Protein backbone atom coordinates (compact mmCIF):
# COMPACT_ATOMS: atom_id res chain seq x y z
CA UNK A 1 0.00 0.00 0.00
CA UNK A 2 2.77 2.37 0.94
CA UNK A 3 4.47 1.35 -2.28
CA UNK A 4 1.42 2.23 -4.29
CA UNK A 5 1.15 5.63 -2.67
CA UNK A 6 4.79 6.24 -3.33
CA UNK A 7 4.41 5.18 -6.95
CA UNK A 8 1.49 7.55 -7.35
CA UNK A 9 3.50 10.38 -5.85
CA UNK A 10 6.35 9.66 -8.26
CA UNK A 11 4.03 9.43 -11.24
CA UNK A 12 2.54 12.79 -10.34
CA UNK A 13 6.03 14.26 -10.09
CA UNK A 14 5.66 14.90 -6.34
CA UNK A 15 8.86 13.11 -5.43
CA UNK A 16 11.54 15.74 -5.52
CA UNK A 17 13.26 17.76 -8.19
CA UNK A 18 15.89 15.21 -9.21
CA UNK A 19 13.39 12.37 -9.69
CA UNK A 20 11.16 14.70 -11.68
CA UNK A 21 13.98 15.72 -14.01
CA UNK A 22 15.03 12.10 -14.53
CA UNK A 23 11.48 11.02 -15.30
CA UNK A 24 10.91 13.83 -17.76
CA UNK A 25 14.25 12.99 -19.35
CA UNK A 26 13.16 9.36 -19.71
CA UNK A 27 9.84 10.46 -21.21
CA UNK A 28 11.66 12.65 -23.74
CA UNK A 29 13.82 9.69 -24.66
CA UNK A 30 10.73 7.50 -25.09
CA UNK A 31 9.15 10.12 -27.34
CA UNK A 32 12.33 10.24 -29.44
CA UNK A 33 12.60 6.47 -29.83
CA UNK A 34 8.88 6.30 -30.62
CA UNK A 35 9.34 8.94 -33.33
CA UNK A 36 12.50 7.55 -34.90
CA UNK A 37 11.19 4.00 -34.46
CA UNK A 38 8.35 4.67 -36.90
CA UNK A 39 10.85 4.89 -39.73
CA UNK A 40 13.03 2.10 -38.35
CA UNK A 41 9.91 -0.04 -38.62
CA UNK A 42 8.51 1.26 -41.92
CA UNK A 43 11.92 1.12 -43.60
CA UNK A 44 12.48 -2.35 -42.10
CA UNK A 45 15.54 -1.55 -40.07
CA UNK A 46 14.46 -3.30 -36.84
CA UNK A 47 17.07 -6.05 -37.02
CA UNK A 48 19.84 -3.67 -37.99
CA UNK A 49 18.83 -1.50 -35.04
CA UNK A 50 19.12 -4.48 -32.71
CA UNK A 51 22.58 -5.32 -34.06
CA UNK A 52 23.69 -1.72 -33.66
CA UNK A 53 22.38 -1.68 -30.09
CA UNK A 54 24.27 -4.81 -29.09
CA UNK A 55 27.38 -3.51 -30.83
CA UNK A 56 27.54 -0.59 -28.41
CA UNK A 57 28.77 -2.86 -25.62
CA UNK A 58 32.45 -2.99 -26.66
CA UNK A 59 32.18 0.78 -27.18
CA UNK A 60 31.01 1.27 -23.62
CA UNK A 61 33.98 -0.77 -22.41
CA UNK A 62 36.43 1.11 -24.63
CA UNK A 63 34.94 4.43 -23.53
CA UNK A 64 35.51 3.42 -19.92
CA UNK A 65 39.12 2.43 -20.62
CA UNK A 66 39.80 5.63 -22.56
CA UNK A 67 38.31 7.77 -19.79
CA UNK A 68 40.38 6.02 -17.13
CA UNK A 69 43.54 6.24 -19.24
CA UNK A 70 43.05 10.00 -19.61
CA UNK A 71 42.44 10.45 -15.92
CA UNK A 72 38.68 10.94 -15.97
CA UNK A 73 36.04 8.96 -14.12
CA UNK A 74 35.45 5.71 -16.00
CA UNK A 75 31.73 6.35 -16.03
CA UNK A 76 31.84 9.84 -17.50
CA UNK A 77 28.95 10.01 -19.96
CA UNK A 78 30.69 11.70 -22.94
CA UNK A 79 33.33 8.97 -23.11
CA UNK A 80 30.81 6.16 -22.87
CA UNK A 81 28.51 7.73 -25.47
CA UNK A 82 31.38 8.40 -27.86
CA UNK A 83 32.71 4.87 -27.44
CA UNK A 84 29.32 3.25 -27.97
CA UNK A 85 28.62 5.40 -31.03
CA UNK A 86 31.99 4.41 -32.45
CA UNK A 87 31.48 0.65 -32.26
CA UNK A 88 27.84 1.02 -33.29
CA UNK A 89 28.92 2.78 -36.50
CA UNK A 90 31.61 0.14 -36.99
CA UNK A 91 29.00 -2.62 -36.73
CA UNK A 92 26.76 -0.91 -39.28
CA UNK A 93 29.71 -0.63 -41.65
CA UNK A 94 30.54 -4.31 -41.11
CA UNK A 95 26.98 -5.33 -41.99
CA UNK A 96 27.04 -3.13 -45.07
CA UNK A 97 30.41 -4.52 -46.15
CA UNK A 98 29.36 -8.14 -45.69
CA UNK A 99 26.14 -7.62 -47.66
CA UNK A 100 27.83 -5.80 -50.54
CA UNK A 101 31.07 -7.81 -50.78
CA UNK A 102 30.11 -11.37 -49.95
CA UNK A 103 27.28 -13.61 -51.04
CA UNK A 104 25.87 -13.75 -47.50
CA UNK A 105 22.44 -12.20 -47.09
CA UNK A 106 21.55 -9.37 -44.72
CA UNK A 107 19.97 -11.66 -42.13
CA UNK A 108 23.14 -13.65 -41.73
CA UNK A 109 25.30 -10.54 -41.69
CA UNK A 110 23.19 -8.93 -38.97
CA UNK A 111 23.16 -12.01 -36.73
CA UNK A 112 26.92 -12.56 -37.05
CA UNK A 113 27.83 -8.95 -36.41
CA UNK A 114 25.42 -8.64 -33.47
CA UNK A 115 26.81 -11.71 -31.71
CA UNK A 116 30.45 -10.90 -32.45
CA UNK A 117 30.35 -7.34 -31.19
CA UNK A 118 28.35 -8.34 -28.12
CA UNK A 119 30.83 -11.12 -27.34
CA UNK A 120 33.70 -8.68 -27.70
CA UNK A 121 31.94 -6.34 -25.31
CA UNK A 122 31.43 -9.05 -22.70
CA UNK A 123 35.10 -10.05 -22.90
CA UNK A 124 36.21 -6.43 -22.53
CA UNK A 125 33.90 -5.93 -19.55
CA UNK A 126 35.36 -9.03 -17.90
CA UNK A 127 38.83 -7.63 -18.42
CA UNK A 128 37.74 -4.33 -16.94
CA UNK A 129 36.41 -6.07 -13.82
CA UNK A 130 39.93 -7.33 -13.11
CA UNK A 131 41.44 -3.83 -13.33
CA UNK A 132 42.20 -1.95 -10.12
CA UNK A 133 40.83 1.40 -11.28
CA UNK A 134 37.51 1.18 -9.44
CA UNK A 135 34.23 2.60 -10.67
CA UNK A 136 33.53 -0.33 -12.96
CA UNK A 137 30.73 -1.52 -10.68
CA UNK A 138 28.12 0.66 -12.38
CA UNK A 139 28.89 -0.32 -15.96
CA UNK A 140 26.28 -3.06 -16.03
CA UNK A 141 23.52 -0.42 -16.08
CA UNK A 142 24.28 -0.11 -19.79
CA UNK A 143 23.12 -3.67 -20.30
CA UNK A 144 19.62 -3.36 -18.83
CA UNK A 145 19.33 0.31 -18.04
CA UNK A 146 18.74 2.14 -14.78
CA UNK A 147 17.31 5.53 -14.00
CA UNK A 148 17.88 5.19 -10.28
CA UNK A 149 20.91 7.23 -9.34
CA UNK A 150 20.91 9.09 -12.63
CA UNK A 151 22.26 12.61 -12.40
CA UNK A 152 20.16 15.63 -13.23
CA UNK A 153 22.73 16.76 -15.79
CA UNK A 154 22.64 13.35 -17.47
CA UNK A 155 18.86 13.49 -17.74
CA UNK A 156 18.99 16.98 -19.25
CA UNK A 157 21.62 15.86 -21.79
CA UNK A 158 19.47 12.90 -22.83
CA UNK A 159 16.35 15.06 -23.11
CA UNK A 160 18.17 17.62 -25.25
CA UNK A 161 19.44 14.99 -27.70
CA UNK A 162 15.98 13.41 -27.76
CA UNK A 163 14.38 16.67 -28.80
CA UNK A 164 16.99 17.15 -31.52
CA UNK A 165 16.34 13.64 -32.90
CA UNK A 166 12.56 14.19 -32.92
CA UNK A 167 13.01 17.59 -34.57
CA UNK A 168 15.11 16.06 -37.35
CA UNK A 169 12.38 13.51 -38.02
CA UNK A 170 9.79 16.29 -38.14
CA UNK A 171 11.95 18.33 -40.53
CA UNK A 172 12.34 15.48 -43.03
CA UNK A 173 9.02 13.83 -42.38
CA UNK A 174 7.71 14.09 -45.96
CA UNK A 175 10.81 12.63 -47.56
CA UNK A 176 11.21 9.86 -44.97
CA UNK A 177 7.59 8.83 -45.53
CA UNK A 178 8.10 8.84 -49.27
CA UNK A 179 11.21 6.67 -49.24
CA UNK A 180 9.62 4.20 -46.82
CA UNK A 181 6.45 3.86 -48.89
CA UNK A 182 7.80 3.67 -52.42
CA UNK A 183 11.58 3.64 -52.86
CA UNK A 184 11.52 3.25 -56.63
CA UNK A 185 9.24 6.26 -57.07
CA UNK A 186 11.31 8.32 -54.66
CA UNK A 187 14.54 7.58 -56.51
CA UNK A 188 12.94 8.21 -59.91
CA UNK A 189 11.91 11.69 -58.85
CA UNK A 190 15.39 12.71 -57.83
CA UNK A 191 15.19 12.40 -54.07
CA UNK A 192 18.49 11.31 -52.47
CA UNK A 193 17.36 7.86 -51.37
CA UNK A 194 20.77 6.80 -50.07
CA UNK A 195 21.09 9.91 -47.94
CA UNK A 196 17.57 9.46 -46.57
CA UNK A 197 18.37 5.85 -45.68
CA UNK A 198 21.55 7.02 -44.04
CA UNK A 199 19.54 9.59 -42.10
CA UNK A 200 17.22 6.89 -40.77
CA UNK A 201 20.24 4.84 -39.74
CA UNK A 202 21.91 7.85 -38.12
CA UNK A 203 18.76 8.68 -36.16
CA UNK A 204 18.40 5.06 -35.04
CA UNK A 205 22.01 5.08 -33.96
CA UNK A 206 21.59 8.37 -32.12
CA UNK A 207 18.56 7.35 -30.08
CA UNK A 208 20.14 3.99 -29.26
CA UNK A 209 23.25 5.65 -27.89
CA UNK A 210 21.15 8.22 -26.03
CA UNK A 211 18.88 5.53 -24.63
CA UNK A 212 21.57 3.12 -23.41
CA UNK A 213 21.73 4.62 -19.95
CA UNK A 214 17.97 4.42 -19.39
CA UNK A 215 16.84 1.30 -21.27
CA UNK A 216 20.06 -0.64 -21.72
CA UNK A 217 21.50 -2.02 -24.94
CA UNK A 218 19.87 -5.44 -24.74
CA UNK A 219 16.33 -4.11 -24.90
CA UNK A 220 16.51 -0.65 -26.50
CA UNK A 221 15.36 -2.04 -29.84
CA UNK A 222 12.03 -2.83 -28.19
CA UNK A 223 11.46 0.83 -27.36
CA UNK A 224 12.18 1.62 -31.02
CA UNK A 225 9.86 -0.95 -32.52
CA UNK A 226 7.00 -1.69 -30.09
CA UNK A 227 5.54 1.85 -29.88
CA UNK A 228 5.22 2.27 -33.68
CA UNK A 229 3.91 -1.27 -33.98
CA UNK A 230 1.23 -0.45 -31.41
CA UNK A 231 0.49 2.96 -32.94
CA UNK A 232 -0.10 1.36 -36.35
CA UNK A 233 -3.27 -0.26 -34.99
CA UNK A 234 -4.83 3.13 -34.24
CA UNK A 235 -4.43 5.03 -37.49
CA UNK A 236 -3.84 4.81 -41.24
CA UNK A 237 -1.85 8.06 -41.41
CA UNK A 238 1.93 8.14 -41.02
CA UNK A 239 1.80 11.54 -39.27
CA UNK A 240 -0.74 10.52 -36.66
CA UNK A 241 1.01 7.19 -36.23
CA UNK A 242 4.23 9.03 -35.39
CA UNK A 243 2.51 11.24 -32.80
CA UNK A 244 0.76 8.27 -31.18
CA UNK A 245 4.00 6.28 -31.21
CA UNK A 246 5.84 9.16 -29.54
CA UNK A 247 3.21 9.37 -26.80
CA UNK A 248 3.29 5.60 -26.27
CA UNK A 249 7.10 5.56 -26.10
CA UNK A 250 7.08 8.47 -23.67
CA UNK A 251 4.44 6.80 -21.46
CA UNK A 252 6.41 3.54 -21.37
CA UNK A 253 9.68 5.21 -20.44
CA UNK A 254 7.97 7.48 -17.92
CA UNK A 255 6.28 4.52 -16.22
CA UNK A 256 9.52 2.52 -16.15
CA UNK A 257 11.41 5.40 -14.63
CA UNK A 258 8.69 5.88 -12.01
CA UNK A 259 8.88 2.27 -10.92
CA UNK A 260 12.66 2.51 -10.74
CA UNK A 261 12.32 5.52 -8.47
CA UNK A 262 10.20 3.49 -6.06
CA UNK A 263 12.14 0.24 -6.40
CA UNK A 264 15.72 1.21 -7.28
CA UNK A 265 16.77 -2.45 -7.62
CA UNK A 266 14.44 -3.08 -10.57
CA UNK A 267 16.28 -2.71 -13.88
CA UNK A 268 14.53 0.06 -15.79
CA UNK A 269 14.81 -1.37 -19.32
CA UNK A 270 12.76 -4.53 -18.78
CA UNK A 271 10.03 -2.60 -16.95
CA UNK A 272 9.81 -0.07 -19.78
CA UNK A 273 9.59 -2.86 -22.34
CA UNK A 274 6.85 -4.64 -20.40
CA UNK A 275 4.79 -1.46 -20.19
CA UNK A 276 5.27 -0.93 -23.92
CA UNK A 277 4.20 -4.50 -24.53
CA UNK A 278 1.03 -4.00 -22.47
CA UNK A 279 0.21 -0.99 -24.66
CA UNK A 280 0.85 -3.11 -27.76
CA UNK A 281 -1.43 -5.83 -26.48
CA UNK A 282 -4.29 -3.40 -25.91
CA UNK A 283 -3.67 -1.89 -29.34
CA UNK A 284 -3.70 -5.23 -31.14
CA UNK A 285 -7.17 -5.95 -29.80
CA UNK A 286 -8.78 -2.53 -29.51
CA UNK A 287 -6.93 -0.36 -32.05
CA UNK A 288 -9.38 1.90 -33.87
CA UNK A 289 -7.94 1.39 -37.36
CA UNK A 290 -6.81 -2.21 -37.58
CA UNK A 291 -7.39 -3.80 -34.17
CA UNK A 292 -8.70 -7.35 -34.10
CA UNK A 293 -11.99 -6.29 -32.56
CA UNK A 294 -12.84 -3.77 -35.24
CA UNK A 295 -11.88 -6.31 -37.89
CA UNK A 296 -13.99 -8.98 -36.27
CA UNK A 297 -16.94 -6.62 -36.36
CA UNK A 298 -16.48 -6.66 -40.09
CA UNK A 299 -16.33 -2.90 -40.09
CA UNK A 300 -14.12 -2.58 -43.13
CA UNK A 301 -15.46 0.80 -44.11
CA UNK A 302 -15.18 2.06 -40.57
CA UNK A 303 -11.53 1.06 -40.35
CA UNK A 304 -10.87 2.97 -43.56
CA UNK A 305 -12.53 6.12 -42.31
CA UNK A 306 -11.97 5.99 -38.57
CA UNK A 307 -8.76 7.90 -38.80
Amino acid at each position, binding site marked *: MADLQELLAVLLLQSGYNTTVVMLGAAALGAATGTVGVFAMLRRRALVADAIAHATLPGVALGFLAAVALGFSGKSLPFLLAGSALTAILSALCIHWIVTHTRLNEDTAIASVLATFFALGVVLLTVIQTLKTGGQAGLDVYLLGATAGMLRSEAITLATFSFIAAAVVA*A*FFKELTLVSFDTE*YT*RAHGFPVRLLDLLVLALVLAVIVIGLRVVGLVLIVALLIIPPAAARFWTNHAGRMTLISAVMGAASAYGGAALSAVRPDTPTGPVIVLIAFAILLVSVFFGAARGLLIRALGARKLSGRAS
Partner: protein
Amino acid sequence: MLAPSPSERVSSRAMQAPPLSVRDLTVTYGGRAALSRVNWAAPESGIVAIVGPNGAGKSTLLKAVLDLVPKAEGAAEVFGKPVSQQRGLIAYVPQRASVDWDFPATAADVVTMGLYRRIGWLRPVRAMDRAKAREFLDAVKMAEFADRQIGALSGGQQQRVFLARALAQQAKLFLLDEPFAGVDAVTEGVMTGVFRRLRDAGSLVVCVHHDLSSVRDIFDHVLLLNREVIAAGPVAEAFTPENISRTYGVPLMPDAAQTHG
Protein backbone atom coordinates in the same frame (compact mmCIF):
# COMPACT_ATOMS: atom_id res chain seq x y z
CA MET B 1 -0.22 31.40 -57.88
CA LEU B 2 2.85 29.24 -58.15
CA ALA B 3 5.93 30.83 -59.64
CA PRO B 4 7.34 28.69 -62.42
CA SER B 5 10.19 26.56 -61.16
CA PRO B 6 13.56 26.92 -62.88
CA SER B 7 13.08 23.59 -64.63
CA GLU B 8 9.81 24.77 -66.15
CA ARG B 9 11.47 27.84 -67.58
CA VAL B 10 14.20 25.66 -69.02
CA SER B 11 11.59 23.47 -70.63
CA SER B 12 9.76 26.24 -72.44
CA ARG B 13 13.05 27.32 -73.95
CA ALA B 14 13.92 23.79 -74.97
CA MET B 15 10.45 22.82 -76.13
CA GLN B 16 11.69 22.07 -79.63
CA ALA B 17 13.72 19.16 -78.26
CA PRO B 18 11.61 15.99 -77.97
CA PRO B 19 10.17 15.26 -74.52
CA LEU B 20 12.16 12.05 -74.48
CA SER B 21 15.01 10.79 -76.61
CA VAL B 22 17.53 8.00 -76.17
CA ARG B 23 20.77 7.59 -78.08
CA ASP B 24 22.70 4.34 -78.41
CA LEU B 25 21.30 3.17 -75.10
CA THR B 26 22.74 -0.14 -73.93
CA VAL B 27 21.92 -1.72 -70.58
CA THR B 28 23.51 -4.96 -69.38
CA TYR B 29 22.39 -7.26 -66.59
CA GLY B 30 25.14 -9.63 -65.47
CA GLY B 31 26.96 -9.48 -68.79
CA ARG B 32 23.80 -9.99 -70.85
CA ALA B 33 22.45 -7.09 -72.88
CA ALA B 34 18.92 -6.18 -71.76
CA LEU B 35 18.90 -3.31 -74.22
CA SER B 36 21.25 -2.95 -77.14
CA ARG B 37 21.95 0.37 -78.87
CA VAL B 38 18.43 1.72 -78.59
CA ASN B 39 17.80 4.93 -80.53
CA TRP B 40 14.43 6.57 -80.22
CA ALA B 41 12.94 10.04 -80.22
CA ALA B 42 9.43 10.27 -78.81
CA PRO B 43 6.80 12.43 -80.48
CA GLU B 44 6.20 15.90 -79.05
CA SER B 45 2.96 14.83 -77.46
CA GLY B 46 0.68 11.81 -77.56
CA ILE B 47 0.08 8.44 -75.96
CA VAL B 48 2.85 5.96 -76.66
CA ALA B 49 2.89 2.22 -76.02
CA ILE B 50 6.19 0.41 -75.52
CA VAL B 51 5.37 -3.08 -76.70
CA GLY B 52 7.43 -6.26 -76.80
CA PRO B 53 7.71 -9.77 -75.38
CA ASN B 54 8.75 -10.60 -71.81
CA GLY B 55 12.39 -9.78 -71.28
CA ALA B 56 12.42 -7.34 -74.19
CA GLY B 57 13.67 -4.57 -71.90
CA LYS B 58 10.51 -2.45 -71.84
CA SER B 59 10.61 -1.65 -68.11
CA THR B 60 14.39 -1.47 -68.29
CA LEU B 61 14.10 1.28 -70.89
CA LEU B 62 12.01 3.44 -68.53
CA LYS B 63 14.31 2.67 -65.61
CA ALA B 64 17.42 3.50 -67.62
CA VAL B 65 15.86 6.80 -68.69
CA LEU B 66 15.21 7.60 -65.01
CA ASP B 67 18.71 6.51 -63.92
CA LEU B 68 17.22 3.71 -61.83
CA VAL B 69 19.47 1.21 -63.59
CA PRO B 70 22.96 2.10 -64.88
CA LYS B 71 23.52 2.65 -68.58
CA ALA B 72 26.38 0.64 -70.05
CA GLU B 73 26.45 3.01 -73.00
CA GLY B 74 24.46 5.83 -74.52
CA ALA B 75 22.35 8.58 -73.04
CA ALA B 76 18.78 9.69 -72.47
CA GLU B 77 17.51 13.24 -72.66
CA VAL B 78 14.29 14.87 -71.52
CA PHE B 79 13.46 18.06 -73.42
CA GLY B 80 17.06 18.17 -74.61
CA LYS B 81 18.70 17.91 -71.19
CA PRO B 82 19.96 15.12 -68.97
CA VAL B 83 17.21 13.60 -66.86
CA SER B 84 18.88 14.69 -63.63
CA GLN B 85 18.14 18.32 -64.55
CA GLN B 86 14.54 17.67 -65.57
CA ARG B 87 13.12 15.66 -62.67
CA GLY B 88 10.41 18.24 -62.07
CA LEU B 89 8.99 17.62 -65.55
CA ILE B 90 8.67 13.85 -65.20
CA ALA B 91 6.03 11.78 -63.44
CA TYR B 92 6.81 8.09 -63.09
CA VAL B 93 4.33 5.39 -62.10
CA PRO B 94 6.28 2.24 -61.21
CA GLN B 95 4.80 -1.22 -61.34
CA ARG B 96 2.43 -1.66 -58.44
CA ALA B 97 4.65 -4.27 -56.80
CA SER B 98 7.15 -1.62 -55.69
CA VAL B 99 4.94 -0.39 -52.85
CA ASP B 100 4.52 -1.37 -49.18
CA TRP B 101 0.79 -2.12 -49.09
CA ASP B 102 0.54 -2.12 -45.29
CA PHE B 103 1.90 1.39 -45.15
CA PRO B 104 0.01 3.89 -42.99
CA ALA B 105 -1.28 6.00 -45.88
CA THR B 106 -4.74 6.62 -47.31
CA ALA B 107 -5.49 7.22 -50.98
CA ALA B 108 -5.43 10.97 -50.28
CA ASP B 109 -2.07 10.67 -48.50
CA VAL B 110 -0.56 8.87 -51.49
CA VAL B 111 -1.75 11.55 -53.93
CA THR B 112 -0.36 14.23 -51.62
CA MET B 113 3.05 12.58 -52.04
CA GLY B 114 2.93 13.76 -55.65
CA LEU B 115 3.08 17.31 -54.31
CA TYR B 116 6.10 16.79 -52.03
CA ARG B 117 8.59 17.93 -54.64
CA ARG B 118 6.76 21.19 -55.18
CA ILE B 119 6.20 21.76 -51.48
CA GLY B 120 9.96 21.46 -51.04
CA TRP B 121 12.37 20.39 -48.33
CA LEU B 122 11.67 21.36 -44.71
CA ARG B 123 8.18 22.65 -45.52
CA PRO B 124 5.10 20.98 -44.06
CA VAL B 125 2.08 19.71 -46.01
CA ARG B 126 -0.70 22.27 -45.68
CA ALA B 127 -4.48 22.03 -45.86
CA MET B 128 -4.25 23.66 -49.28
CA ASP B 129 -2.09 20.77 -50.51
CA ARG B 130 -4.53 18.20 -49.15
CA ALA B 131 -7.41 19.94 -50.88
CA LYS B 132 -5.47 19.90 -54.14
CA ALA B 133 -4.78 16.18 -53.72
CA ARG B 134 -8.53 15.56 -53.42
CA GLU B 135 -9.08 17.33 -56.74
CA PHE B 136 -6.66 14.96 -58.44
CA LEU B 137 -8.39 12.00 -56.81
CA ASP B 138 -11.62 13.35 -58.23
CA ALA B 139 -10.04 13.47 -61.69
CA VAL B 140 -9.59 9.68 -61.58
CA LYS B 141 -13.03 9.14 -60.01
CA MET B 142 -11.60 8.07 -56.67
CA ALA B 143 -12.86 10.92 -54.47
CA GLU B 144 -15.16 8.67 -52.47
CA PHE B 145 -12.22 6.42 -51.51
CA ALA B 146 -9.97 9.27 -50.37
CA ASP B 147 -9.79 8.05 -46.77
CA ARG B 148 -9.35 4.36 -47.52
CA GLN B 149 -5.99 2.81 -46.60
CA ILE B 150 -4.09 2.20 -49.84
CA GLY B 151 -3.81 -1.56 -49.37
CA ALA B 152 -7.58 -1.86 -48.83
CA LEU B 153 -8.31 -0.78 -52.42
CA SER B 154 -8.69 -3.05 -55.43
CA GLY B 155 -5.86 -3.28 -57.95
CA GLY B 156 -7.58 -0.96 -60.40
CA GLN B 157 -8.39 1.57 -57.69
CA GLN B 158 -4.79 1.52 -56.51
CA GLN B 159 -3.63 2.14 -60.05
CA ARG B 160 -5.96 5.14 -60.32
CA VAL B 161 -4.55 6.53 -57.06
CA PHE B 162 -1.03 6.28 -58.49
CA LEU B 163 -2.19 7.99 -61.65
CA ALA B 164 -3.66 10.77 -59.48
CA ARG B 165 -0.31 11.06 -57.69
CA ALA B 166 1.38 11.44 -61.10
CA LEU B 167 -1.17 14.10 -62.12
CA ALA B 168 -0.46 15.98 -58.88
CA GLN B 169 3.14 16.40 -60.03
CA GLN B 170 1.90 18.49 -62.96
CA ALA B 171 4.56 16.98 -65.20
CA LYS B 172 5.00 17.22 -68.95
CA LEU B 173 6.27 13.68 -69.45
CA PHE B 174 4.47 10.71 -67.92
CA LEU B 175 6.23 7.35 -67.75
CA LEU B 176 4.07 4.44 -66.63
CA ASP B 177 5.15 0.83 -66.17
CA GLU B 178 2.29 -1.48 -67.15
CA PRO B 179 -0.51 0.77 -65.91
CA PHE B 180 -3.17 -1.43 -67.52
CA ALA B 181 -1.95 -4.72 -66.04
CA GLY B 182 -4.73 -6.42 -64.12
CA VAL B 183 -7.08 -3.45 -63.89
CA ASP B 184 -10.87 -3.44 -64.25
CA ALA B 185 -12.81 -1.97 -67.16
CA VAL B 186 -13.79 1.17 -65.22
CA THR B 187 -10.15 1.90 -64.42
CA GLU B 188 -9.13 1.28 -68.01
CA GLY B 189 -11.75 3.77 -69.16
CA VAL B 190 -10.76 6.39 -66.59
CA MET B 191 -7.05 6.06 -67.38
CA THR B 192 -7.62 6.25 -71.12
CA GLY B 193 -9.69 9.41 -70.64
CA VAL B 194 -6.99 11.00 -68.46
CA PHE B 195 -4.27 10.13 -70.99
CA ARG B 196 -6.27 11.78 -73.80
CA ARG B 197 -6.72 14.94 -71.76
CA LEU B 198 -2.98 15.01 -71.04
CA ARG B 199 -2.20 14.53 -74.72
CA ASP B 200 -4.63 17.28 -75.74
CA ALA B 201 -2.92 19.56 -73.22
CA GLY B 202 0.40 18.88 -74.96
CA SER B 203 1.90 16.27 -72.65
CA LEU B 204 3.53 12.99 -73.61
CA VAL B 205 2.36 9.76 -71.99
CA VAL B 206 4.58 6.67 -72.38
CA CYS B 207 3.31 3.31 -71.15
CA VAL B 208 4.93 -0.08 -71.04
CA HIS B 209 2.10 -2.19 -72.38
CA HIS B 210 1.41 -5.89 -72.59
CA ASP B 211 -1.94 -6.35 -74.24
CA LEU B 212 -1.54 -6.18 -78.02
CA SER B 213 -5.28 -6.26 -78.61
CA SER B 214 -5.89 -2.88 -76.93
CA VAL B 215 -2.99 -0.97 -78.49
CA ARG B 216 -5.09 0.52 -81.29
CA ASP B 217 -7.85 1.64 -78.92
CA ILE B 218 -5.68 3.39 -76.37
CA PHE B 219 -2.48 4.56 -78.03
CA ASP B 220 -1.58 6.75 -80.97
CA HIS B 221 2.15 5.95 -81.10
CA VAL B 222 4.01 2.72 -80.56
CA LEU B 223 7.58 1.63 -79.89
CA LEU B 224 8.12 -2.04 -80.73
CA LEU B 225 11.02 -3.28 -78.68
CA ASN B 226 12.92 -6.51 -78.31
CA ARG B 227 16.24 -5.53 -76.77
CA GLU B 228 16.60 -3.29 -79.80
CA VAL B 229 14.13 -1.05 -81.56
CA ILE B 230 12.14 -3.06 -84.12
CA ALA B 231 9.87 -0.23 -85.22
CA ALA B 232 8.52 3.06 -83.93
CA GLY B 233 5.97 5.59 -85.09
CA PRO B 234 2.25 6.29 -85.29
CA VAL B 235 0.20 3.19 -84.56
CA ALA B 236 -1.27 3.20 -88.08
CA GLU B 237 2.20 3.02 -89.64
CA ALA B 238 4.35 1.08 -87.20
CA PHE B 239 1.94 -1.36 -85.54
CA THR B 240 1.79 -3.67 -88.55
CA PRO B 241 1.47 -7.46 -88.43
CA GLU B 242 4.91 -7.71 -89.96
CA ASN B 243 6.55 -5.52 -87.29
CA ILE B 244 4.69 -7.31 -84.53
CA SER B 245 5.87 -10.70 -85.73
CA ARG B 246 9.45 -9.41 -85.98
CA THR B 247 9.17 -8.11 -82.43
CA TYR B 248 7.83 -11.32 -80.98
CA GLY B 249 9.98 -13.57 -83.11
CA VAL B 250 6.93 -15.48 -84.32
CA PRO B 251 6.80 -15.22 -88.08
CA LEU B 252 3.22 -14.50 -89.09
CA MET B 253 4.23 -14.69 -92.73
CA PRO B 254 7.31 -16.65 -93.79
CA ASP B 255 8.45 -13.93 -96.18
CA ALA B 256 8.24 -11.28 -93.44
CA ALA B 257 10.79 -13.20 -91.41
CA GLN B 258 12.99 -13.45 -94.49
CA THR B 259 12.90 -9.72 -95.15
CA HIS B 260 14.16 -9.17 -91.63
CA GLY B 261 16.92 -11.75 -91.83
